[in-house]
């Protein structure tokens, strides 16, 4: 297999994921409506309850809507990552996973391609959201829209890799509700998406530390800083480290020689 074969394979996987996404209007609409509801209703309600002091990367006092916008961008990617996980479980139940795994291209590449395809979809969703959020006066610098792209790719890959790891543990689609309760909501609420860390630290030190080790916190901060043309090296390093760990775990979980799937099938 030559590099061109790998490139064609990647193109095919990205195209399939995009087609599935385009054809599932409800998935697209809900992915967009969810953060907009938070922005339009939640942020409006809390804008006078939660005061935000001047914290980097902001150089002045900001409305609450501006503060939570990067968190909502992260939310889109978090849900999308978990949606990819759901689609892996769906593919496994429907049998289309077998089609993927019968490719002569190495499995680690197939998983990375799947990851990248999910990230492409999530990045498009984020830009549509940012476009609409502009009307709520979420107006980062123009170059911020470009600077945030690498951050979105990195955070999208990291959250997608987490989704892949989770998908190897989920037996049936019905179990996906558990992912919502035990992964998405705790990750979202125990992060800087809705409130800055210093506020959390004031109220509870141990929740503060949970937020600190939460990969989603660092993904959100990476996005927040990049959107305002600043680089957050700690957030970048932690996001990359989590990406490496989750990707290695996903490749491990989908390797038939150590396959969690085969063991699970054997038990079933």
């Amino acid at each position: 297999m030559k590099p061109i074969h790998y490139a064609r394979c990647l193109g095919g996987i990205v195209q399939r994921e995009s087609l599935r996404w385009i054809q599932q209007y409800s998935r697209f609409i809900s992915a967009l409506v969810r953060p907009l509801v938070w922005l339009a209703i939640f942020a409006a309600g809390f804008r006078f309850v939660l005061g935000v002091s001047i914290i980097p990367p902001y150089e002045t006092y900001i409305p609450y809507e501006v503060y939570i916008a990067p968190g909502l961008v992260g939310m889109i990617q978090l849900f999308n990552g978990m949606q990819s996980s759901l689609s892996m479980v769906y593919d496994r139940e429907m049998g289309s996973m077998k089609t993927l795994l019968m490719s002569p291209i190495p499995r680690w590449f197939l998983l990375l391609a799947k990851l990248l395809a999910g990230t492409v979809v999530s990045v498009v969703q984020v830009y549509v959201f940012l476009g609409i959020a502009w009307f709520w006066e979420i107006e980062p610098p123009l170059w911020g829209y470009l600077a945030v792209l690498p951050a979105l790719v990195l955070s999208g890959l990291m959250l997608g890799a987490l989704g892949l790891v989770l998908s190897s543990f989920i037996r049936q689609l019905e179990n996906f509700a558990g992912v919502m309760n035990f992964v998405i909501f705790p990750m979202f609420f125990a992060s800087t998406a809705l409130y800055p860390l210093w506020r959390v630290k004031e109220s509870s030190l141990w929740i503060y530390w949970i937020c600190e080790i939460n990969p989603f916190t660092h993904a959100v901060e990476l996005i927040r800083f990049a959107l305002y043309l600043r680089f957050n090296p700690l957030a970048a390093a932690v996001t990359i480290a989590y990406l490496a760990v989750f990707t290695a775990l996903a490749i491990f979980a989908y390797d038939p020689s150590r396959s969690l799937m085969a063991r699970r099938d054997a038990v079933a």
Partner: protein
Amino acid sequence: MSLPALAVERLSHSFGPRKVLDEVSFSVMPGDFTVLLGPNGAGKTTLIALITRLYHCKTGKISVLGNDMWRHPSAALAKTGVVFQQSTLDLDLTVGQNLYYHTALHGMARRQAKGRIEAELARIHMLDRLNDKARELSGGQRRRVELARALLHEPAFLLLDEPTAGLDIETRPLLLEHVRRLCAERQLAALWTTHLIEEAGTDAKVVVLNQGKILADGPVAAVVASTGSSDLHGAFDHLTKLAATARAAA
């Protein structure tokens, strides 16, 4: 003498203490239409999962045209086409989108893929369904599309796992005939797994698997003659009863 399209050598597999395959060996030569015959629970599904690399092969060896499935998986999988028992088409995509996805997974260029897709769909008289959603096809049509898909990358070895399961009585012989013709015309080696004895016909090569062991391997006529039976049904009954007696005695 050409290399076997599929060679399975001393393959064993266990789930915990339960041994589901025991020293299984057989081969499928180019042009052979081979029927892997076994009742439910014989170990066929595990064997298929090992051949398709969905399970890890710990004991024994599987090779496709001399390429070890575990040491050189890319070369082995590039020469393997599979039709799974459960439909693996993406029902939300069109027939064409499903087929292009498969060609991309095999690294094929778009132009080459287009030619192959049109040729294979024309062969099964379904070129006019290219832009229809897979969901709109009947069970038999989906199965034919899956067969066309398995052939797009021009494999030397075709594995069909209970391909007639769920199909109506009229469609079954048509599919069987189609695969037999492919073997004759393209020197394609096919392994057709089934629990339906009549699908072996009278001129296929047959491998009888029961309780994880190979009980017979050879042309239908030779297997029937070796048991002194009048047909394959009789031979199958004879072989399985013999195996049950041996197990009871052991």
